[in-house]
């Protein structure tokens, strides 16, 4: 029900992001989706990849602070109000969205990655509301 997000700490310095991407390229890890904010001192590069474990291992060996985080990949159809509908369940249950970014936008789909304060509870809740969640296998099949 969860998928593994690869999170890497990077200093806001010329070339640092490229170095991370180069490590993943050497390891033949494909990036399916990513998020990076424009903070001043440092950033967290969050990625959904074809092989998060291999990516983390390679990055650690190259001296990066990289870790895996459980996140939810929520399948949404590309219609007005769909994301709001999901979030209304989350809000009513008193849960918080820590961060969120787009996963895919193809055909009639607008799926998202999100990290919710209490992951297990959130996953159960969404399942009970018949919200579809992608597994790591699904991600591989669909996007790689």
């Amino acid at each position, binding site marked *: 029900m969860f998928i593994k*997000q690869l*999170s*890497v*700490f*990077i*200093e806001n310095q010329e070339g640092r992001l490229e170095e991370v991407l180069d490590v993943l390229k050497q390891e033949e890890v494909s990036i399916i989706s990513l998020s990076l*904010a424009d*903070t001043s*001192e*440092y950033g*967290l590069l*969050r990625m959904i990849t074809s092989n998060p474990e291999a990516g983390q291992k390679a990055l650690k060996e190259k*001296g*990066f*602070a*990289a*870790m895996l*985080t459980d996140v939810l990949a929520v399948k949404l159809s590309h219609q007005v109000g769909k994301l709001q509908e999901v979030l209304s369940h989350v809000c009513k249950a008193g849960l918080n969205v*820590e*961060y969120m970014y787009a996963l895919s936008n193809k055909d009639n789909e607008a799926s998202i990655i999100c990290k919710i304060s209490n992951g297990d509870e959130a996953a159960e809740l969404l399942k009970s509301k018949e919200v579809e969640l992608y597994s790591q296998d699904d991600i591989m099949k669909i996007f790689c």
Partner: protein
Amino acid sequence: MIWAKEETMSRDEIEALQLERLKETVTRVYEKVMPYRRKMEEAGVKPADIQTLKDLSRLPFVTKQDMRDNYPFGLFAVPKDDLVRIHASSGTTGKPTVVGYTKKDLDVWTECVSRIAAMGGATSKDVAQICFGYGMFTGALGLHFGLENIGAALVPSSTGNTEKQIMYMKDFGTTLLVATPSYALRIGEVAHQMGIDPRKDLKVKIGLVGSELLTEAMRTEMHKLWGEDMLVTSNYGMSELMGPGVSGECEYLCGMHVNEDFFIPEIINPKTGEVLPPGEKGELVITCIYKEALPLIRYRTKDVTRLIYEPCKCGRTTVRMENLDGRTDDMLKIRGVNVFPSQIEEVLLGIDEIGPHYEIIVTRKNHSDILEIRVELVEPVDAYRKLEALEKKIKQKLRIVLGLDAKIRLESPNTLQRFEGKAQRVKDLRKEV
């Protein structure tokens, strides 16, 4: 103006007085301060062996480590009941260095500061604004009582809120400023930004700066901001010895006159401990010969300077010490506060999320020192709020120990330089001004 007759005694008179006071101090310390008595016994020297000033070199040194080993009151020569004031300054690690004063010590301190303030041009007509941080730091209260004793009107405005400081200066007609050289420059700069030209709009004509090295470049900059006619003098002291008041510059700006009836300065080779001939540069060692509570004998200041014995044009005969020329240890002065890299290291090692490697970078921007510390994040983090919380935690712990705010720079593991020999973890990038 020469404040005391002791400042113009002949060399013979000064030395006779010094010897008498040295003998009395050594005898008293031998009787009352057990850790120092043991040092004397180990060195095989007794109070009776001190027959001339030259014999001073037979006595063992006292270091900051001794202060630490005997924290808080172990080196005091009076019972705690006799103390009327306790101050503290940074230790090299962990506990601070504690100093105490009897009623008489405070009177002597006031006398010493009155002399150096008078050397710097202070009179009873001055309105003296003290922009040193009040508190455990000896600077502010030292200057406070010394200037009050002269009869100046005191404005104890402390540090911070620079715009308000300038308002006081303007409205109260402040004529004398006490601050660190860098803060004095900062105030001048802020005044200009506020549309106030200190050269015309303020009456400040005397700057007594201390607690931090005043370079000639800074003095020139002071004149640019505050006016060519401002008399900017530096003064020297440290809490272990008393606080400010050990020495100060007169209007001829040719070294700081030491209050020799209270302190005996020596210059040693910091490696061998051997006393160097007059005029040679080395580590300054000071013996307090007129103190009750904490009469330190041969205290190693770690400051590098040279002594000038020729009488000065001002009429004073007291020995002068040249402006400091660095340190024999790694102590940094940041915004007037003593900072030892070991203090920072101790804090950083106590935080699990970061690694044991670090780099301390000191820069100066707008005349204010900036302390930045680079550390490596060893425990990966996946949320900004956790990074912020970690930064905040490091900052708070450092603030408790240093009394200063530092900027924390988190970096990836293995980004900081590794050293095989002695680590060079401090980069002091401050230019002269």
